[in-house]
């Protein structure tokens, strides 16, 4: 059993988008489903629209959108893309032991 499961930590996520592009919409839908399926009750996410807050891109060094940033637990992890590959996202978030 994975050690992180025994001591559930709240996952703090940020999804960076730039307006309502198809990829951003897909990413948001994928993220919502993924959080409910795998992180129910122990996650918190916010969506940052860079069209409104371009200066925020620098803080997390965002080079492409959509980008998902796991701010907590440390270390910060980034997953780039529309989050359609669930396995890759779970691995990126360290929610699944690496094989």
């Amino acid at each position, binding site marked *: 059993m994975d050690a992180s499961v025994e001591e559930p930590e709240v996952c703090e996520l940020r999804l960076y988008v730039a307006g309502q*592009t198809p990829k951003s919409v897909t990413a948001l839908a994928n993220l919502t489903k993924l959080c409910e399926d795998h992180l129910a009750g122990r996650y918190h996410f916010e969506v940052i629209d860079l069209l409104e807050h371009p200066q925020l891109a620098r803080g997390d060094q965002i080079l492409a959108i959509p980008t998902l940033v796991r701010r907590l637990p440390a270390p910060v992890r980034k997953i*780039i893309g529309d989050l359609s590959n669930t396995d890759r996202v779970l691995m990126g978030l360290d929610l699944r032991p690496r094989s």
Partner: protein
Amino acid sequence: MSFAGRTQEQLVEEVAELRERLRDAEETLRAIREGEADALVITEGQQDEKVYALKSIRAEENLRLLADAGAMPTEALDLAATLQRAARLAVSGFADWCVIDLAAEEGRIERVVAAHADPGRQVLIEELKRFPPRGDEPHGPALVLRTGRSQRLAQWRAECLETVGQDPEHRRTFAALEPRSSLQVPLAARGRILGVWSFYSSSSRRSYDESDQELAEELGRRAALAIDNARLYGAAQAANLAKDRFLATLSHELRTPLTPVLAVISSLEGDDRLEVKVRESLAMVRRNVELEARLIDDLLDLTRIARGKLELSRRQTNLRRLVEQAVETCCGQDMASGRLTLVQDLAAAEPTVWADAPRLSQVFCNLLNNAVKFTPDGGTITVRSQFDAPSLQASAGSEQGEIVVEISDTGVGIRPGALSQIFNAFEQGDQGGNRRFGGLGLGLAISKAIVELHGGRLSAESEGIGRGATFTVRLPVGRRRQEAAKVIGAERRGAPRADAGGPLHILLAEDHADTAEALAALLEGLGHRITIAGTVAGALEAAAATDTPIELVISDLGLPDGSGLDLMRELSRRYRLPGIALSGYGMEEDIEKSRQAGFARHLTKPVTLDLLKDVIDQVRERD
């Protein structure tokens, strides 16, 4: 124990952070390549920042498509010029005056051109631009735009004038232009109605008939195509610029942390207090960091090639030695371990070519690395060269014949259908599903461009999957006599001084403390004396001190209180000091800017000790 000012823990942490950044960057490129993400470009203005999400970083494909679409004269690719020319054409006989309206965002209509045959009435007709049609109007351009059908009025009567115009002022202007007959045709291209072209007769008293309408519709179709092309071209160019910017930002992000890491590793590798095993591991780390730096350089090269800005600095080059060195560097390990067999047959009798040696090495290393990468254990790599004497029909350019270098392997081979695409950027032969092999797929595109810049050719052959591949480089044997003489002369002058090159007092302007310290340690290792300054003001102060004058400046370009460019301008004005720029940015504009500021050389981070040493020697010779 401390390594170049760091504890072991700090070092481990730095390497971990570096690995994380590289992983992020590779992941970014993967996601963009596979269409899961759009590249983000943020332009910084004075007050506001603008954000663009770039659908594709392969915008040049749009340009190629346009070029293929037909003979499009380049001057017609400017939208404003296209419209003006169309309007001038219309009023040189067919109409007395004309107006072009284009559909804009959110149902708005823009009146972009109003032209009159009589220059004296141009001021009057310009007034019409103040009254662009509204999208819901039941007549005129708005109607044509909605329906896509032309409107013809053979004869304007006084009561017609009553119905047009949005207000009395508009009506007065319109009446003053004395319309007699009119034709309004759609500007339709590629299935979309882009706008409306309205033709009017007045003093000519011409009355438009059906055949005039047909002609006007044909004019409309042609103009619409030109307008659409101009718009697409504009969009593609903007995307291209944004793409270059994105790549520059990305490479900067990637390069910056590599500099201190490379510097620390180089110094640790030479530290004999460390166990041999540790030093071997460090060599492995360094090789991988250098590999990553090469990938970044490839990205930058690609943007230079796409814009025709890749420049060669040529001299007489011994091709045999260059190929031998490339083989040693790229294949040495796999040969020594017995993983692969090498057959080398460099028979070319005349091995001298007029070439940019580092660039040509890059080509051979690319080809050899590919051969090694794509050949399974127990395979063979064959490197052959031969001299092709000039044939009787040879053109002036190849009158001295060609050297042909062939690199063959017994590896995975290339599907016949894929042979024509492997020289495209971002392509690897096998694109089905997972990419089995690492790398960005830029090497062959860059290699081909470099060989062609040398006046040569690069081609590929393969009998199919699993049957190996052969890459052939053909280079003209040449000596541009005049230029060759110049280079030899320069070498003779420079040589004695290079041998006598003693220690220098170097001013190092660099605000990143880790980088500054690591670089200073390395330069001191070469026997130089180093003064570090973290700001422009500090550097100017250090240069003003007269006890031991500064002889050379090495400066980062982004300093906290100003730019390294300003610093260099000031130092070369006051003391005529030679300088070397160090920057994370390596686009040709950046290099040009630092050259103009007075830097003798512009190096892009990360910089290895060997390169820095060579450049210092070159700059000191030039001085």
